[in-house]
């Protein structure tokens, strides 16, 4: 036996399962679908977790990685408007206004490996390696440092599934899910041993894709694709189990997985109805368009008082802020209350649609809060809020089956997570484990 054993590094490993709700992972563990996860989750703290609003990946992941809400990190949705215009743009990683946890680690010369992290495109310099995930397009811009581009490309690594074809063709979707998962596993195998890392993170996004297109399948054992869908979670489970065992092997089993974390960025449920809020605003007289078939909010006409950006972000069309601004500051306060009250009374058949309609200051804090929406609507599970301006009806359905939820994400740590867990609290918890 060596007299002096090298002290083991205190490392952290995070596995993100995009969109997997607490309820689903609990069910799969009980039903034996995910035995490796069941074994891991049997000890430590498994918690139902709340996320920031709106509950979409482009906001939730920045909230996770920066430990802050959109008022501080500055990302409020997949789309936003250029200041002083109605022109939409897609916020990118450069629009993130707070350091990610691996930025903080890098400042202390700690090495990170981050694979398939959504909302980090184009990839930027990190101490270690970053492979951007959704909405990354080009692998060349999705990988830092560039020296890894050819290695990652060579392993048939695919950033995402072909969403267009997968939405229509579920057989194809399953093959795409398998292919992307295989690529993630190869990347994990390579990078785990290639770098002497302090922080390792892998996000699996196929779960979110499957749930968007086939949530109904997961709830219907008689469905022809039921077992095939569950098989995908079995494969995810096997990969997570493998990584967990390796982490414990290298960290020392006496630590019982201390430093290992599992989480999702939002929950999921079955869509009952999509709710087109701009159509509701139009019918209530708050919005008019300058053409019969509007395509974007840039097509609103003079006199418009409010508009919605996906999913439930309501903006008052303020004078001085927007080119066709029609609402003064004094009027804005009353208008906000009026819209809030009416929305809370919105019904579909005999059900109220909204769970809550929050004021900006109730949900955001920080220097960029003012760039957020005036009101943020959250609907009861099953009502999927949309900002489309093209719809002529308030309620409708498409071929999408699953929708996001804000209050049913999950988090697991080997240690004590406390009773209430919020996605903005994870970053500090993880940073404390790296030493």
């Amino acid at each position, binding site marked *: 036996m060596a007299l002096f054993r090298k002290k083991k590094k205190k490392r952290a490993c995070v596995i993100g399962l995009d969109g997997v709700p607490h309820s689903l992972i609990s069910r799969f563990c009980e039903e034996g679908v995910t035995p490796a996860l069941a074994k891991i989750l049997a000890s430590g703290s498994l918690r139902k977790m709340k996320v920031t609003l709106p509950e*979409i990946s*482009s906001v939730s992941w920045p909230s996770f990685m920066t430990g802050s809400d959109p008022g501080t990190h*500055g990302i409020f949705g*997949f*789309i936003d408007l250029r200041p002083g215009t109605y022109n939409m743009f*897609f916020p*990118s*990683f*450069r*629009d*993130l*206004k*707070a*350091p*990610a946890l691996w*930025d903080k680690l890098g*400042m202390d010369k700690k090495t990170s490996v981050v694979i398939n992290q959504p909302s980090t495109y*184009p990839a*930027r*310099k990190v101490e270690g390696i970053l492979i951007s995930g*959704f*909405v990354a*397009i*080009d692998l060349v*811009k999705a990988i830092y440092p560039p020296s890894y581009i050819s290695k990652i490309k060579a392993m048939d690594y695919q950033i*995402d599934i072909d*969403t*267009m074809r*997968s*939405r229509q063709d579920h057989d194809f979707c399953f093959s795409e899910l398998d292919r992307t998962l295989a690529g993630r596993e190869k990347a994990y195998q390579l990078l785990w041993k290639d770098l002497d890392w302090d922080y390792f993170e892998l996000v699996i996004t196929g779960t979110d*894709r499957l749930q*968007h297109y086939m949530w109904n399948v997961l709830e219907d054992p008689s469905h022809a694709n039921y077992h095939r869908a569950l098989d995908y979670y079995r494969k995810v489970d096997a990969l997570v189990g493998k990584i967990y065992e390796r982490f414990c092997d290298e960290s020392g089993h006496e630590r019982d997985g201390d430093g290992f974390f599992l989480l999702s960025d939002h929950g999921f449920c079955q869509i009952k109805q*999509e709710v087109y809020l701009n159509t509701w605003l139009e019918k209530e007289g708050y919005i008019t368009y300058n053409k019969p078939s509007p395509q974007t909010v840039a097509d609103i006409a003079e006199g418009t008082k409010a508009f919605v950006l*996906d*999913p439930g972000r309501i903006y008052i069309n303020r004078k001085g802020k927007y080119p066709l601004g029609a609402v003064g500051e004094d009027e804005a306060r009353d208008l906000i209350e009026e819209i809030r009250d009416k929305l809370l009374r919105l019904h579909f058949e005999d059900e109220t649609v909204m769970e809550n309609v929050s004021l900006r200051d109730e949900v955001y804090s920080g*220097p960029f809060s003012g760039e957020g929406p005036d009101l943020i609507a959250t609907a009861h599970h099953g009502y*999927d809020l*949309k*900002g*489309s301006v093209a719809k002529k009806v308030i309620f409708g359905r*498409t071929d*999408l089956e699953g*929708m996001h939820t804000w209050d049913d994400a999950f988090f697991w740590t080997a240690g004590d997570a406390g009773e209430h867990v919020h996605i903005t609290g994870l970053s*500090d918890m993880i940073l404390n484990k790296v030493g």
Partner: protein
Amino acid sequence: MKGFTLWFTGMSGAGKSTIAEKIEEILLERGMKVEVLDGDVVRTNLSKGLGFSKEDRDINIRRIGFVSHILTRNDVVAIAAAISPYREIRDENRKLIGRFVEVHCKCPLDTLKERDVKGLYAKAARGEIKEFTGVSDPYEEPLKPEVIVDTDKESVEESVAKILRTLELMGYIPPSGEEDEYTAEEEEKIKSRLQDLGYI
């Protein structure tokens, strides 16, 4: 560029003024309007006559906060370097200013006593200075500062780089390197993908 306040807090001798001066130089070189409110200097003018009781310390820090707020509002970078030992008053300033970046200059007391550049720790130990932070008066560490610089472990250059990187990442100062935006082709692909998933 919009203004912001860079607030250095930490015990006497932890390196606040030294790092603040370096940051000032770099931001001035990058063409920004910068003002430094150094605790030692402020006590000779704006807060002249104030002592070191908790009440006087709070007034001093609120005054620095108020001036920083006005500077920030007028698109100046205000750099405050003062012990600012009480968390509540620092957080009050954070709330007032909004665009507020807290830097904790962290250094163990033993190291500070060894350094003792101004000879103040020795005086405090001899009882010649009453109400001395870290010795006979409390210092409340920030719970969630934007940056922690461990000045006993890092060089001044490393601490400065850490702070500048944070400011870049927060979008308060322009990044030193070029980072690409989306191309038109990428925008089309992103739009299509978001539509496929029902996000827009």
